[in-house]
């Protein structure tokens, strides 16, 4: 664990106890079984906002507490432990980051205070097919009068079905594959011509497909500069990746702890199964990967806070290492629990399903290994 400020430790501890008390896995399970299509519980979200988490990154002038990414990462790690499904990630981290990085005063005024107060939700709409490919954006934004007309589709948008405002990456020039010619737009969730389809994802989190049929937006809805949105988008994505990595780290740590506990209690052949050396070595290796992943996640968050020049590498590193350990531990959780781990009544499946969705979101390990190598020049 990195050395934390007093404020960070306090917030981390507060999150820890709140999660244990108010948002155990049973709460997520209940939400899932209730068929709640939002993918989160509004009452729970309200509590999280009251604790100020929605405004961690929001400057004080806009009603937030103006803290740093490491702090938000600590909270995401704790909420990740129990699979807490909430807009914290998409609104307080992703959408907020986009506005902080590229929003003008009017745009910040319009949204940041609402985000911090829990009165509005935001979401980032980037991918248009099954695989993460930010430069392959094709959704067309055509000039019409003083504004723009958006036509195309976005898929698997996290909280896209609930968001009051969508940050949409669109193509204003060039062709799919060009980094130039991408522009970010702020689009109201209830915009005319926008069809939102809530999906039933394997991990029961709120995701949606979006169809844009001549959706009109004004000139003032451009976030950042026309045709040069990619660098902002990439920066937003890196913050999203680091945050997702923090969430995965929390989850993997929790599922490891649960599994370790089972190894210490389950008996077969007259032995607690945790005494079997093959399982001991597998557990020790998981622990090793968890420690390595923690270092990567913390380094990425700290680099963002310091505006370091290796943010991109570190975020790809954190996403990959946290994703890989989440992958490993979620599989071992099922295997080491045996038959009971295969039942829907047990939590193993919930961790397994959430893990794969997070691994794929904003680029899987394959994507980020390639990106890392490219960034390092080979």
């Amino acid at each position, binding site marked *: 664990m990195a050395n934390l400020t007093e404020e960070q430790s306090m917030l981390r501890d507060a999150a820890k106890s709140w999660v244990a008390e108010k948002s155990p896995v049973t709460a997520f399970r209940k939400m899932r079984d209730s068929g709640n299509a939002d993918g989160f519980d509004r009452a729970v979200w309200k509590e999280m906002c009251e604790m100020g988490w929605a405004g961690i990154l929001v400057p004080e002038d806009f009603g937030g507490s103006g803290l740093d990414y490491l702090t938000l990462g600590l909270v995401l790690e704790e909420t990740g432990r129990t699979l807490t499904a909430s807009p914290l990630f998409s609104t307080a981290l992703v959408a907020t980051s986009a506005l902080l990085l590229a929003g003008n005063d009017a745009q910040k005024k319009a949204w940041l205070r609402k985000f911090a107060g829990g009165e509005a939700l935001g979401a980032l709409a980037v*991918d248009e*097919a*099954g*695989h*993460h490919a930010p430069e392959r954006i094709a959704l067309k934004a055509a000039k019409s009068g003083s504004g723009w007309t958006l036509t195309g589709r976005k*898929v*698997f948008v996290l909280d896209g079905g609930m968001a009051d405002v969508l940050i949409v990456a669109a193509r204003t020039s060039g062709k799919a594959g060009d980094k130039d010619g991408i522009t970010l737009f702020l689009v109201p969730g209830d915009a005319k011509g926008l069809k939102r*389809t809530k*999906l*039933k*994802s*394997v*991990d*029961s989190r709120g*995701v949606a*497909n979006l169809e844009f049929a001549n959706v009109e937006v004004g000139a003032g809805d451009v976030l950042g500069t026309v045709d040069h949105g990619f660098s902002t988008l990439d920066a937003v994505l890196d913050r999203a990746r680091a945050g997702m990595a923090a969430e995965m780290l929390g989850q993997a740590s929790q599922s490891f702890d649960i599994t370790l506990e089972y190894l210490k209690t389950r*008996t*077969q*052949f*007259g032995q607690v199964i945790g005494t*079997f*050396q*093959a*399982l001991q070595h597998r557990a020790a290796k998981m622990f090793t990967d968890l420690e390595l992943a923690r270092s990567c996640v913390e380094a990425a968050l700290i680099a963002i806070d310091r505006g370091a020049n290796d943010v991109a590498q570190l975020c790809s590193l954190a996403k990959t290492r946290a994703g890989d350990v989440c992958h490993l531990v979620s*599989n071992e959780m*099922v*295997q080491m629990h*045996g*038959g*009971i*781990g*295969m*039942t*829907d*009544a047990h939590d*193993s*499946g919930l961790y*397994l*399903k959430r893990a*794969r*969705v997070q691994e*794929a*979101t904003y680029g*899987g390990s*394959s*994507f980020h*290994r*390639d990106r890392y190598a490219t960034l390092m020049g080979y």
Partner: protein
Amino acid sequence: MSDLETFRADTRKWLQANYPAGLGQVSLDDDDDSIWGGRRAKHKNKDAKLWLDRMAEKGWTAPTWPKDYGGGGLSPAEARVLQQELGRIKARPALMSFGLWMLGPVLLEYASEEQKREYLPKIVRGEIRWCQGYSEPGAGSDLASLRTRCEDKGDHFLINGQKIWTSYADKADWIFCLVRTDTSKKHEGISFVLFDMTTPGVEARPIKLISGSSPFCETFFTDVKVPKAQLVGKLNGGWEIAKRLLQYERQNISSGGFGGGGGVELEEIAKSYVGEKDGHLADADLRARIAAHRMEAKAFALTVRRIEEEAKAGKTVGPAVSIIKYAAAKLNQERCELMVEAMGSQGLGWDGEGFKPSEIAATRSWLRSKGNSIEGGTSEVNLNVVAKRVLGLLDHQ
């Protein structure tokens, strides 16, 4: 013309005359009850019922079983010819049944004459559908630690306890069940009994898996009265029968089910979701991992073939067979992981709009595949067995 050739010719003729034209084919995992038979089978498909009855009449649902018990009385060679001819016309299996695969063979070996005459013919004709009462919540890999009590009440047995992973307990007519008849010993305190699932005190609850609904059940026994005549083999002599039956079950799991990776191949699916670049899969990293997996799958398939050829040549089964279950489970899990990875977010749907049925199916198969290394002997137990039985390594003292 050799006897075998005569047999082949007759068989072919008979099949031409008796395989219902309207029946066509069906995949092995099809759960149409007419294939599983039993008292409660509705036999919606009349051709299927006709096919079952015709095959049963010749005893060809159990080709090698003695005619006395309703079997076909065929020699292994004849049985192979029958398989070949059925394969030639791609015939749909007439009957799928735990009775045929697991119970029948051990009854032939351990049951009394009366029991054989009572139970075997009904298995051959698919009249009684059987389920297997083995695992318990506290007895998984360590099956012999099972606790389901079976008390001798003089004129009958009284059974109390719980089983888990009882496939199709909610659909079966009878159960073959391991029970504890002596609590002072472990392996020597187990007996093998048969009873009717409609007996008062029997309750089966389907288990929902991480992949959705499943054939598995939790099965509860509360003061279940069982006639003593339904004990197979000796009292407290059930463990030997249980182990023998497991051999048949594992053969069954290894051969069928997973491995190979049927349907559209992984690389084709990957191409369609990931795209291509100069004739190669666009994601070079994924391509390398798919190639490595496909090569392992090919190596596995070649190994299965090698084992079959060695067996045909009448050699004693080589050590390779011991690794089949472990390797098959690992392969299928890798394949499923690569499949959902290749599909990206389209491979992460549970159901409903936005996902094709083939995508939902891939996701469910991926989740279900996690059980491959647990059911029918965990991979850890498989590796222990290889280390000890095949490699001759000793137990930790």
